[in-house]
């Protein structure tokens, strides 16, 4: 079981690293896919089966495809990495990492004695469904989300379309 965890964690971290530092945007994109896959795995190890599946479908399936389309539609020129920028950013990122860990130490004190109740490991899909359709639990966010998606759909279409219509006008 630990093995699974280590594999997935490694996959996620390595994917993230490659994404962050590879010079080719395509590689980075696929690395991101890897990272996301790893995270999906971690969900499983956490017993969130539905969420994991969704993660696969939505990210690995959808978002990354979107990203790749974006990559194709735009030029690749500015994928190169400016070392100066690294010089600049290294300390920042370093400090950030340091303080993340520093915080973790504080967190650890809180959560270390939290135990795991095995009951939680049961399949979650049905309960999630009920929770989303239950008015006094998550119905409202659900609906809002639906509306939001609709807006996003329209918005995205408009934003993208305007460009073409401009070209038509120009």
């Amino acid at each position, binding site marked *: *079981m630990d093995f699974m965890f280590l594999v997935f964690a490694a996959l996620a971290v390595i994917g993230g690293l490659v994404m962050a530092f590879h010079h080719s945007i395509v590689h980075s*994109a696929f690395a991101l896919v890897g990272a996301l896959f790893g995270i999906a795995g971690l969900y499983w190890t956490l017993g969130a089966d539905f969420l994991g599946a969704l993660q696969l479908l939505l*990210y690995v399936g959808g*978002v990354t495809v979107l*990203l790749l389309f974006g990559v194709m539609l735009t030029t690749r020129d*500015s994928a190169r*990495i400016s070392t100066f920028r690294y010089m600049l950013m290294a300390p920042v990122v370093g400090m950030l990492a340091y303080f993340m860990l520093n915080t973790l130490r504080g967190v650890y004190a809180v959560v270390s004695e939290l135990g795991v109740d095995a009951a939680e490991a049961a399949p979650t899909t049905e309960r999630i469904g009920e929770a989303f359709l239950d008015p006094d639990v998550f119905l409202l966010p659900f609906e809002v989300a639906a509306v939001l998606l609709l807006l996003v*759909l329209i918005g995205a279409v408009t934003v993208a379309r305007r*460009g073409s219509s*401009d070209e038509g006008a120009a």
Partner: protein
Amino acid sequence: MLATLKSLAAPLNSAVVQVEEVAADASVAAAPFVERLDAYLVVSGILFVLGVATILTRRNALYVLMGTELILNAANLNFVAFARFGDYGLDGQLMALVVVMLAAAEMAVALAIVLRIFHDFGSIDLTRTDGLRD
């Protein structure tokens, strides 16, 4: 000055301390990573930093998007992890679901915008799209 240095070195100490504690407490030491919250937290932290690093270092808008995604996922991982180790029921997962959905939406709009930027500026180099500069 010394105190500052000590505090700076604190994380390392903490790792050491943890190892010692593991050694001291068998039950904890016996506990596998899967049952240890901090393991997940460390992973999500690393991912978060990587996302930020991506955003900060890359000038390509798509990279920024990817970085964002990574940060979001790191956050999601936290949600789920805490949901599992504290007895918070399903709320964490549900919140994660909402975030995923939001992320998808954000991705859609963001890509549209990126295309727009590309159309307007002829490139998606964010250093050139400094319309906000006074």
